[in-house]
């Protein structure tokens, strides 16, 4: 019996540690200054998937990512670290997707893989923090979900035991396959790249990337078919088109406002001890502190 494990991963702008370099003068974030990275919790999910694969005989790990053609980086990175294969879901039909349309597209991609035993993803992506896509994909696949996974406690031939991280503690749950697991950032970090796999797969790319580079890889792909990263467009998923992209997204952005800060009359002090002393005295005498 062979097992199929799927990891859902996303490429995101690195919104962590938005330091001064990435802040514009008006206090907004300069997106262009933020590198595109592998969503951190998706790496925790990849690690959990790989460690399940290590414990089950005859299991494969498949990565699915949705995004523009450069998101193939996520698939290459996953393969370097031990994933077997990856699929990029890409195309204009997906533009403007909210979480519901995204989860529909991803669930159709998972269904295209046939029988799947486990689906893992990060708890949430750092560019939106909604944590919605995981549970929504689980519902669309009609399988149970285990969110906030922190530790893989046990794997058997047909089940997993998972420790979940809750606000005020932990719980251990058990579920039979198939099940979807969303993985918390406190779970084990992902193993490093394997140097051999980097050598073997560094030329792996999608058709779009080949075109962008102006290269012809058809001979290479004939010899080494594993270097071709499959790219699925909307048509490949055989979807109800009305459920994709903008038309499949019930949430609409009504408007976006720049926040105009109502200027308070802020008393500006220097770091001189006398000035700080005056402030502390004032706070104490007005019973705010002390």
């Amino acid at each position, binding site marked *: 019996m062979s097992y199929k494990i799927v990891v859902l991963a996303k490429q995101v702008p690195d919104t962590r540690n938005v330091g001064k370099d990435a802040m514009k003068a008006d206090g907004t974030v300069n997106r262009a200054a933020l590198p595109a990275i592998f969503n951190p919790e998706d790496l925790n999910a990849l690690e959990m998937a790989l460690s399940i694969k290590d414990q089950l005989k005859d299991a494969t790990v498949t990565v699915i990512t949705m995004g523009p053609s450069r998101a193939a980086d996520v698939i290459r990175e996953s393969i370097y670290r031990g994933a077997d294969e990856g699929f990029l879901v890409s195309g204009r039909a997906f533009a403007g997707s909210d979480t519901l349309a995204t989860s529909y597209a991803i669930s159709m991609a998972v269904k295209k893989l046939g029988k799947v035993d486990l689906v893992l993803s990060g708890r949430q992506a750092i560019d939106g923090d909604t944590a919605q896509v995981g549970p929504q994909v689980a519902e669309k696949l009609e399988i149970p979900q285990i969110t906030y996974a922190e530790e893989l406690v046990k794997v058997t031939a047909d089940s997993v035991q998972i420790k979940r991280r809750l606000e005020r503690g932990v719980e251990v749950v058990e579920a039979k396959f198939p099940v979807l697991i969303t993985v918390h950032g406190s779970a084990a970090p992902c193993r490093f790249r394997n140097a051999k796999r980097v050598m073997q797969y560094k030329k792996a790319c999608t058709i779009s990337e080949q075109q962008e580079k102006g290269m012809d890889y058809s001979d290479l792909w004939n010899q080494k078919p594993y270097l071709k990263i499959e790219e699925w467009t909307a048509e490949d998923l055989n979807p109800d088109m009305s459920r994709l992209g903008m038309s499949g997204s019930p*949430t*609409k952005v009504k408007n*976006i406002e720049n926040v105009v800060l109502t200027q308070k009359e802020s008393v500006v002090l220097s770091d001189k001890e006398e000035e700080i002393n005056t402030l502390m005295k004032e706070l104490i005498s007005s019973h705010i502190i002390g």
Partner: protein
Amino acid sequence: MNNIFVYCEITEEGTIADVSLELCSKARKLADTLQTKLEAIVIGSNLQNLEAQLYPYGVDIINVADDSRLFPYSTLPHFDIVTNLFKEKQPEIALFGATSVGRDLAPRISSYLRCGLTADCTSLEIGEHSDAKSGKEYKNLLYQIRPAFGGNIIATIVNPETRPQMATVREGVMKKEVYNATHKGVVNKLDVEKYVTESDFCVKILERHIEEQKINIKNAQIIVAGGYGVGSKENFKMLHELAELIGGEVGATRAAVDAGYTEGERQIGQTGVTVRPKLYVACGISGAVQHRAGMDQSAKIISINTDPKAPINSIADYTIIGDVCDVLAKMIKTYKANTK
């Protein structure tokens, strides 16, 4: 107009969670604006005193599913009860706490009902909307307002076509306010067997360890909070020193938490805790809107920053221009000198 629903969470102690009562307070106001009723959904085991807990917050109908298998929370049975109830009652609006329960349950429900869900709203209002493309006019939509990635931007999200309009809200964002101490409603007992199936219990809870809450910044009257500008875990100790001295708690921005300077429980802001202390000392915090959303109702704000142009300064009562560690050391010293 159909009713507004609040999914009410049950705490370890068996009471209704604060976040749910806060949502009821907000939902009551929305219901008054829309001239509709407020319904609560409570799912648990051996539930007690629900009426006394919920009616004062303006709940008109309490839908109760009580069964020994329904606590602790597990996704599928709660999912089946809520979705079946929603199919019967067709709510206009449905609100959930943005907790580990609400954020597990609400997306699955929205997926099944194919309706829009907005996470971590910081404000909810009722308003009109006209669709630019179709030219269609909508009245009395729920404005789901939240900061958006990109700094000082607030996005208003609407779900024009799908019902219920769903949103999650973090604890502390809405105010818990008694609506009317003598308000009375009715209880609607749900036949659990009708809603759940045996296969809903396929995920088995083997063990649970729930700890006492160690850090409680939500109710702290004084908060000394640090941002990425504090610079290191080591420097954060200065914040603890001042906080301890003046009887406060230490808070942090998300950037500081992500950088590993302090624990995630201390995070203040849209994806953390919302606080309203009488004093907020913002150390090395630039003041992104996501952070300000969680602290801008503080009574007094002191900002310590090397940058005179940091956005936080414009909502601060006092701005001290200087190095965080240096200024904190002077605050500690002068406080001690003045309270001897």
